């Protein structure tokens, strides 16, 4: 029995659609692409239940495959002893999988034979709509735009026949009415709505993920055509309903998608090379439990090595540093911190790369950009202005940028017009051909020449970020609050060095649609320099420092904050607003820049070992070449192999080679008795790290479903996503080349291990008052290890909230006994 179309019914439809859309993760547009946990909205079910849903809905394999564990076993990333211990834990009631069969009820999708044909039609219209090529663009909604066009669309006629296409044309004008009509036509009552919506969303998960972003995450007022979930489902359901109704007149052939991907090559219980004890342990489990135990074993192996290295002694305390450098928590920062600390008397910190400012930033002559984690809305507005006395230079720069931008726009317009590209090739080929040859054969040199040309057209002009209360609409008091929060959260409230550098990061790559995935996630997939500049502008203001001093944070008048940016593709560093640096700091700054250059070169050599183990020659030139080469598929490894999130003073990790696998968040438990800073760290930076971790995880364990496919065949659609080849679904997740070296997984799919040095009672209080943390730790999305003090033993949190002491295995790396501080966490 079905209801008539009423607002009540529509409200219910929206609720069921929202519920169904929990199986879809949001997909950010390419320009601000960030990593997400594809099952974030199912986190309440727990990891294992979400993996079950992934199997039922997408036919996905959410656990490392037997092939993967064979490889890991062979390379020593997991051992038989790890497996035995993991099986004990996997069968322990307090540590076993969360979720229950009841929780999984209603999460399933059905695949129809017509899916590919229907998908082609829907994807075609999605792409046209987002390219503003449908009537009413860019303001009209998707469903009415489609509805106006489909009545004359030959694709609809080819799929559904003349009569079927006429039925589409006769659908109601509103998306909600059309959905209601289709559900009636299919004879579904309310109990069946959600499964039907899941079926529609799962059929085109990429476009659905874009719609999910638009409907649930896009900031209000986001420009461009808005593909909303309700319109997307209305359109797909319209085709599907019409087709299924047509098929009902003939024999219909349905198949469950879950049955199409179940054929595992190996049984996880009979992996070759295991000890008798490990084999016997696994034999007691069913197949799914055995796969879960393998994941735990891999995670335990990494955990035991890491905790074994984080011993009771403090290393790297720098009593009187020449400079303090604050890097982003990004795992890539660990490498440069390690090298810089060994190059001189420098103290480094880790803090989210937006430096605590939820910033809407307008660069000189540019449109505003939001530089903040997607968990936040912008509340701070700041602008770049011409430096005092440099207005003429700024005008020249703006004029040059305008010329450059007009030239680029004209070129793009010409390329997109019918016959013009041929004329362009004829007219410009004589100039373009040698340039293309140079760009292909000598990319690093070409990039340098292009940079110099660019500087000639738009010469650099000294500018500064305006932090005046009148223009930022932030009072001195509010600015001081931001500063206090940032400094307290990172544990930098005393002992300021004369020079404090806030160092953001970005990645320079060519011809890379997923470039934003290599930039700063805490800055919303943008480069981090402007956030650093804005924070420095606030921290250098005298009224802010006066207020900070009243709150117990006394920044000496001789201390100056300087903004910098680490290019993670080339391991080079840029510094900003140098015209504002007082003269007495210039010498120390020059020394720091020199040390950073050497540290960057050392890091480049280290990274090149992972990127191209057979490379010889100058590593600095090699990574620059990769960065500038427009044919390069692996300009850098990004955050591949990320595995842990470590919260504590740097003295806990200094001198230890963590192989760029750890997000490092500075934290001083002594100055945070109420746990405010720790709560902020666990509920925001850790959540972002978890998203990154899960994006890499799922993209690796089942790239067919969760990765973006092969870069070599990517086509950009409407500037918002990529398809593999021509048309079809948008690809979600990370490209294969960000995860795999040839056929072998480079990323090691492990759930994040959070390691905290703080009183465990404080940690538990924070978990107790934050449902998101209860979900993440209790649902085994994130593992948690902690110790009360440096000398206390490591404790492991079980999912029921109890803690057990970490029992180091006999074969684990011994605790750091102070005889050496040069250790590393191996990754095979």
């Amino acid at each position, binding site marked *: 029995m079905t209801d008539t179309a009423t*607002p009540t019914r529509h*409200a219910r439809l929206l609720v069921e659609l929202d519920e169904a859309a929990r199986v879809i993760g949001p997909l950010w547009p390419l320009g601000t692409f960030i990593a997400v946990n594809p099952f974030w909205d199912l986190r309440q079910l727990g990891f294992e239940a979400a993996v079950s849903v992934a199997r039922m809905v997408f036919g996905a394999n959410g656990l490392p495959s037997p092939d993967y564990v064979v490889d890991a076993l062979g390379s020593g990333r997991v051992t038989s002893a790890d497996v035995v211990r993991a099986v004990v834990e996997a069968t322990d009631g307090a540590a076993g999988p969360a979720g229950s069969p009841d929780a999984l009820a209603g999460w399933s999708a059905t695949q129809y034979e017509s899916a590919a044909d229907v998908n082609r039609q829907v994807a075609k219209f999605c792409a046209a709509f987002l390219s503003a090529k449908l009537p009413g663009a860019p303001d009209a909604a998707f469903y009415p735009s489609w509805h106006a066009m489909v009545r004359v669309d030959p694709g609809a006629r080819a799929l559904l026949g003349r009569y079927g296409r006429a039925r589409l044309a006769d659908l109601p004008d509103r998306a909600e009415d059309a959905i209601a009509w289709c559900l009636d036509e299919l004879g579904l009552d309310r109990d069946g709505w959600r499964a039907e919506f899941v079926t529609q969303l799962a059929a085109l998960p990429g476009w659905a993920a874009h719609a999910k972003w638009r409907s649930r995450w896009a900031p209000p007022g986001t420009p461009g055509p808005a593909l909303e979930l309700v319109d997307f489902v209305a359109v797909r359901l319209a085709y599907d309903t019409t087709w299924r109704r047509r098929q009902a007149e003939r024999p219909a052939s349905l198949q469950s998608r879950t049955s199409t991907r179940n054929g595992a090559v190996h049984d996880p219980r009979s992996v070759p090379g295991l000890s008798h004890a490990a084999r016997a342990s696994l034999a007691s489990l069913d197949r799914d439990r055995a796969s879960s135990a393998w994941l735990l074993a891999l995670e335990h192996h990494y955990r035991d090595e890491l905790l074994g290295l984080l011993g009771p002694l403090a290393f790297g305390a720098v009593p009187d540093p020449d400079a303090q450098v604050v890097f982003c928590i990004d795992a890539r920062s660990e490498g440069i911190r390690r090298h810089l600390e060994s190059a001189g008397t420098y103290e480094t910190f880790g803090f989210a790369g937006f430096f605590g400012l939820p910033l809407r930033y307008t660069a000189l002559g540019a449109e505003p950009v939001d530089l903040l984690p997607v968990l*936040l809305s912008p509340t701070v507005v700041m602008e770049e202005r011409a430096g005092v006395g440099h207005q003429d230079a700024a005008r020249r720069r703006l004029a040059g940028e305008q010329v450059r931008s007009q030239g680029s726009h004209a070129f793009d317009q010409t390329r997109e017009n019918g016959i013009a590209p041929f004329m362009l090739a004829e007219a410009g080929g004589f100039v373009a051909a040698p340039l293309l040859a140079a760009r292909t054969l000598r990319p690093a040199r070409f990039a340098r020449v292009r940079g110099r040309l660019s500087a000639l057209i738009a010469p650099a002009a000294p500018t500064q970020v305006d932090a005046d209360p009148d223009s930022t609409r932030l009072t001195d008091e509010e600015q001081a609050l931001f500063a206090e929060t940032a400094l307290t959260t990172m544990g930098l409230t005393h002992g300021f060095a004369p020079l404090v550098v806030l160092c953001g990061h970005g990645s320079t790559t060519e011809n890379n649609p997923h470039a934003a995935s290599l930039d700063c996630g805490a800055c919303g997939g943008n480069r981090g320099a402007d956030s650093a500049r804005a924070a420095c502008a606030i921290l250098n203001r005298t009224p802010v420092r006066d207020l900070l001093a009243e709150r117990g944070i006394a920044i000496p008048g001789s201390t100056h904050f300087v903004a910098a940016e680490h290019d993670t593709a080339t391991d080079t560093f840029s510094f900003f607003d140098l015209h504002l640096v007082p003269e007495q700091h210039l010498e120390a700054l020059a020394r720091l820049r020199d040390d950073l250059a050497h540290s960057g070169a050392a890091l480049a050599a280290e990274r090149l070992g992972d990127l191209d183990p057979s490379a010889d020659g100058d590593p600095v030139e090699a990574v620059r070449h990769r960065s500038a080469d427009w044919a390069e598929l692996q300009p850098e490894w990004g955050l591949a192999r990320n595995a842990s999130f470590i919260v504590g003073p740097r003295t806990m990790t200094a001198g230890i080679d963590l192989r760029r696998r750890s997000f490092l968040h500075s934290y001083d438990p002594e100055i945070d008795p109420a746990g405010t800073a720790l*709560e902020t760290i666990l*509920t925001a930076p850790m959540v972002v790290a978890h998203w990154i971790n899960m994006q890499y995880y799922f993209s690796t364990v089942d790239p067919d479903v969760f990765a973006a496919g092969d870069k070599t065949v990517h086509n950009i659609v409407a500037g918002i996503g990529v398809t593999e080849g021509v048309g079809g679904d948008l690809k979600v997740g990370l490209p294969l080349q960000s995860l795999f070296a040839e056929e072998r997984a480079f990323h090691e799919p492990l759930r994040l291990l959070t390691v905290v040095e703080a009183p465990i009672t404080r940690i538990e209080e924070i978990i107790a*008052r934050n449902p998101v943390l209860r979900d993440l730790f209790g649902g085994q999305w994130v593992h948690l290890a902690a110790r009360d003090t440096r000398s206390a033993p490591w404790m492991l949190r079980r999912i029921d909230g109890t803690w057990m002491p970490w029992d180091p295995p006999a074969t684990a790396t011994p605790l750091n006994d102070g005889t050496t501080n040069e250790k590393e966490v191996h990754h095979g």
Partner: protein
Amino acid sequence: MDDEWQLTAMTKIEVVVGGEESTAVAALFAEVGATGFTAVSNVSGLGHDGYHQGRLLFNDRNGLVLLMVVLPSDRVADLLDGLRAFLASRPGVLMVSDTSVSRPEYFQ
């Protein structure tokens, strides 16, 4: 209609949900014809899940938000039906009360 103040009777619906649910609730408001609503982010209070401090500094989406909408009484049932279904699988608070407004045309 209140004789002295010329007030018009309406119904106020208040919902407390997780910040990331606020867009879905706002969509329900829009579906029943509400032309506006009020949101207060990072609210605190004691509930089934314990005390919510409302002090997540760098995370707007996992704190709690209070959404308020005022509607003519004849549209309340439509919204309530949707909200009750929405809250069936999520933590949240739903409050309905009579209220009066001085500019009813704003709430039609």
